[in-house]
């Protein structure tokens, strides 16, 4: 996006024949001859003006007294006036330009490509509108992601979602399945890439995955089905990494399927070091078949499962250092005794402080599920 292009002219040294030349800058591709000629009106009507493109191709040559009307629609070689030259000289008399005229002429040349000024104003307006649209998109995206987890007796659940300045494609979902026992479904996913395309794909995939999970026998099948739909119906170079799980509430049995995503961390109540639950297939949308293995873990009372996106581990300090997994473990060690909300807040704050003063470059999503110690 081009913003803040400040058009200006650069004056060239005086030529021997007394002509004055200015180099045009700016991005306009259309010649508004009236606007170009306007600053020279009121000088000597005997003056002539010519414009040539950056590569020296003549575009127009006309007298100031009777500007060539056809020139307005003339095509600009190379598509832009930038780098082209405006030349003004006293051809009618054949004489050079007198000092008084020369001074006004220099001032007029400095203001010459007013056409670019108008375009710069338009660009600024466009940029403002785009910025507003993006902010609107971020609000909408935020509205897809309810931060209030469903009430689940016996469990302490918290979630955190923080959008990057440039809209990203993180999302998560926590909901009770319709099937018997109403198990809890948890999804954390990340659309690769950034911007509107990633946000749109996220908005497309989230309900798709939700429906697939609610209508298949397990998370691995749900990811497989979502992948099939995406590969057959969508064509782009964007992918989704996704971690989908199903938690049987009475037993604490958590079955998971991981399509190219950061593995979940399991923090045991017994204060043993947290461990990653490995086992994954490729990311969603890249291959005809996923063949994601279904993995499982048993959450004992007090145990905590942490699901997150790469916005945590890839977070970058101004020094260039990455947050990395060891800082994640360090934060967890310090906060593991707290509530799910405490654990998440501590981690999000640490990542935020690590990046300061820069704003987060990537979305950050964290979901923590703790099985409460038996009453």
């Amino acid at each position, binding site marked *: 996006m081009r913003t803040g292009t400040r058009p200006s002219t650069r004056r060239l040294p005086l030529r021997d024949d007394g002509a004055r030349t200015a180099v045009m800058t700016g991005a306009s591709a259309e010649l508004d001859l009236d606007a170009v000629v306007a600053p020279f009106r009121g000088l000597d009507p005997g003056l002539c003006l010519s414009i040539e493109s950056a590569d020296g191709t003549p575009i127009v040559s006309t007298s100031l007294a009777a500007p060539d009307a056809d020139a307005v629609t003339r095509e600009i070689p190379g598509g832009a006036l930038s780098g082209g030259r405006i030349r003004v000289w006293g051809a009618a008399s054949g004489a050079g330009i007198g000092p008084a005229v020369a001074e006004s002429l220099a001032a007029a040349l400095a203001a010459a490509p007013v056409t670019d000024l108008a375009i710069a104003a338009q660009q600024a307006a466009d940029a403002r509108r785009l910025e507003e649209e993006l902010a609107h998109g971020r609000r909408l995206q935020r509205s897809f992601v309810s931060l209030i987890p469903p009430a689940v007796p016996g469990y302490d659940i918290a979630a955190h979602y923080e959008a990057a300045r440039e809209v990203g494609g993180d999302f998560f979902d926590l909901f009770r399945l319709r099937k018997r026992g109403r198990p809890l479904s948890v999804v954390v996913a990340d659309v690769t*890439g950034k911007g509107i395309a990633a946000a749109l794909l996220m908005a497309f995939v989230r309900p798709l995955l939700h429906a697939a999970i609610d209508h298949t026998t397990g998370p691995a099948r749900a990811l497989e089905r979502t992948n099939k739909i995406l590969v057959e119906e969508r064509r782009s170079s964007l992918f989704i*990494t996704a971690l989908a799980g199903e938690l049987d509430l009475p037993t604490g049995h958590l079955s998971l399927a991981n399509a190219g995503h950061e593995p979940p961390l399991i923090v045991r109540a017994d204060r043993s070091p947290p461990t990653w639950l490995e086992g994954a297939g*490729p990311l969603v949308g*890249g291959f005809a078949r996923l063949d994601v293995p279904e993995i499982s873990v048993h959450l004992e009372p007090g145990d905590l499962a942490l699901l997150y996106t790469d916005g945590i581990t890839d977070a970058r300090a101004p020094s260039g250092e990455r947050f990395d997994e060891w800082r994640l473990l360090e934060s967890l060690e310090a906060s593991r005794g707290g509530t799910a909300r405490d654990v998440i807040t501590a981690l999000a704050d640490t990542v935020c402080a690590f990046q300061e003063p820069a704003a987060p470059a990537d979305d950050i999503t964290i979901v923590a599920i703790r099985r409460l110690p038996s009453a």
Partner: protein
Amino acid sequence: MSMETTVEQIDGAVPVTILALDGELDASNFRELIDTVKGLYDEGTRQLIIDLAGLRFMASSGLVALHSIVQIMHGEEPLDPEGGWQALHSLGGEPQTEVRLAGPQPAVDRVLKRTGLDRMFVVHADRYTAIDAATAPA
């Protein structure tokens, strides 16, 4: 947050271009990498080895770049609405061989494995084994 690219050309019966990446590949520069490969393809490169030995970090945007690079080397426009998935479908079970990866560091290798992108590429230990494989008579 920067990455340097170095291009080397090996002439022979099978000409090979080596593109060495140095630094970090992420959202700030993955589009430039795609453009670089587009340029190489336009100049005639048909066998490409991406030397990852100097790449310390690869974010998920890097995966988008690698996917687009495979498409370009298949002679397709990346993100072509009609051709987007043909590159992957035509792969079947076998990885393509127009683009080879060489010498990934553990951090990058882990991302390739975790995301399954290693299915798309033959990953060689270093550039020399990659060159041998690329220039070996079929």
